[in-house]
């Protein structure tokens, strides 16, 4: 096993543990950036390492946003998902759980169903681009896990999201 692969597995495990941490769901953007590369070398696992979770989150983009009550993908959303599909087709050791979220407008039950629609919209798109369906699970959090906490559209627009959360060290 190469040093590189070890790092990927460690990072993958970190992503997986974030997955089971109710406080850390889908917060993204703060992935295990182990540090910037020094000199010209690329530090494995850093955002400069194209096989890293940090790269997926910050360079590829781990999330797509939705308009009020909608689950259809925007043109920008498709661009992000195209990048995710390409990345997942290259980094085949990873699986992913796609989390669907809603803003706080709406009831708990309806928002759970709406979050499921959003997560499935992202998943279906990735599958249509060739990602094996057994690598992608979905979960809806409804309005349970906002990332922004204000009660206006500036926050709501960021909370209506589907986030692709990587889990590493697949069946190998």
């Amino acid at each position, binding site marked *: 096993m190469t040093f590189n692969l070890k790092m990927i597995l460690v990072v993958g495990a970190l992503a997986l543990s974030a997955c089971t941490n109710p*406080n850390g769901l889908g917060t993204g953007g703060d992935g295990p950036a182990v540090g910037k590369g020094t000199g010209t070398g690329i530090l494995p696992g850093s955002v400069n390492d194209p096989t890293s979770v940090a790269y997926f989150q910050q360079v590829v983009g781990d999330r797509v946003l939705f308009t009020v*009550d909608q689950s259809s993908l925007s043109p920008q959303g498709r661009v992000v998902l195209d990048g995710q599909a390409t990345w997942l087709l290259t980094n085949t050791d990873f699986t992913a759980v796609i989390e669907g979220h809603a803003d706080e407008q*709406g*009831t*708990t039950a309806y928002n759970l169903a709406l979050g499921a629609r959003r997560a499935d919209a992202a998943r279906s798109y990735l599958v249509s681009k060739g990602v094996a369906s057994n690598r992608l699970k979905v979960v809806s959090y409804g309005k349970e896990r906002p990332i922004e906490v204000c009660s206006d559209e500036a926050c709501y627009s960021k909370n209506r999201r589907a986030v692709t959360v990587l889990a590493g060290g697949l069946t190998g």
Partner: protein
Amino acid sequence: MILRVLIACAVMLVTVSVTPVRAESVTPVPKEPLRIVIDEGVIEPLPFATPDFVPENAGSAKMGADLARVVAADLQGSGLFREIPNSAVISQVSDFGAPVQYADWKAINAEALVVGAVNVSGGNLTVKFRLYDVFSGAELGSGLQFQSTTDGWRRLAHKVADAVYSRITGESGYFDSRVVYVSQSGPKDKRKKRLAIMDYDGANVKYLTDSRAIVLAPRFSPNGDRVLYTSYETGFPRIYVLEVGSVQRRVLESAEGVMSFAPRFSPNGQTVVYSQASGSNTDLFTMDISSGRTQRLTSAPSIETAPSYSPDGTQIVFESDRSGAPQLYVMPANGGEARRISFGEGRYGTPVWSPRGDLVAFTKQSKGRFHIGVMRLDGKEERLLTASFLDEAPTWSPNGRVIMFHRETQGASGSSTLYSVDITGRNLRSVRTPEGGSEPSWSPLQK
């Protein structure tokens, strides 16, 4: 007649028995009995007095005062009664069997008088009470005696208040009941949720789960012995059933890759109706609890969720966005053609069939505000009872007169609190809980 029922709960086991108190003397039947007709448009609360219950042995005095305070709080809290403060009272009651000095109670305008007596002996508690119609100068109904262990003292007070409420309104009460809800703490983006159970008035809170996994929407079984809820224990929303007495829980069977939520019991307690999301679609299903056998009720590509049975178990009211936005529908309990019942402006959700069968309570979202409302099953006579930034999740009191729900405040520091309101829209009150509260489910009246 002796009624003896075992009530098991998370930590306390209280046996309550009820017996009539032998009449001390023959009382005349009042000509115009004390009466509150709840359907009347405006209600002037009926003034009553509840002096401290008479201690029948040394060491019962504090209990006598505590019991009277809980009875008074129940009656006053219903909005139908107004307590006359002890400071106004002329006539002291020091003997449960002594004749009532009606003139003294008339003088302070007390129309109803609740007189009680208490005996604490070892771990056992005996409570007697009589209700008097002051202006008729007669007892209303006959005396009752309740017994339990001392840790069940609040339940005995609630039973006295239920009897008073019932005799004066002609309807059953709701005070000896419990509420299961989601207790929550922490900021919006890191909120911790756990199941809690309490008396209807917020006393005796006990936690039924820890807060490691998100829990949602607990629902009592028809006799209050079990609770259905949704938990993310496995990382995915799944439905669990929890025995209230033992706090044992088990997951209801569910296929890999699907999410199940919004469960509710059928009136016979044997079937669960719930939502299941598979792919982009959320539909309604039922499951027979003992066999695990499931049945699909809907198959439209729209969202179908928040199902609730009619009290006779033959129909289900639910929420669907098949028309484009969430609205309320009614269909047969085994599925089939659904009839839309909500047509007002806005979005409707969380329908709950009333225990009397005549109304459905719902959450309505309109023009950036949330409301709790009720309407008839034909969709007519919609009444909005509340308005705020976010009101949600109505549940009915056992007698169908009061609705409890949660209200969430706006912004980064927003928090959630339980409230109750009469179906007339009057008497909005917060229910105090140790932490924030959401998604209450009211039990039936305890036996």
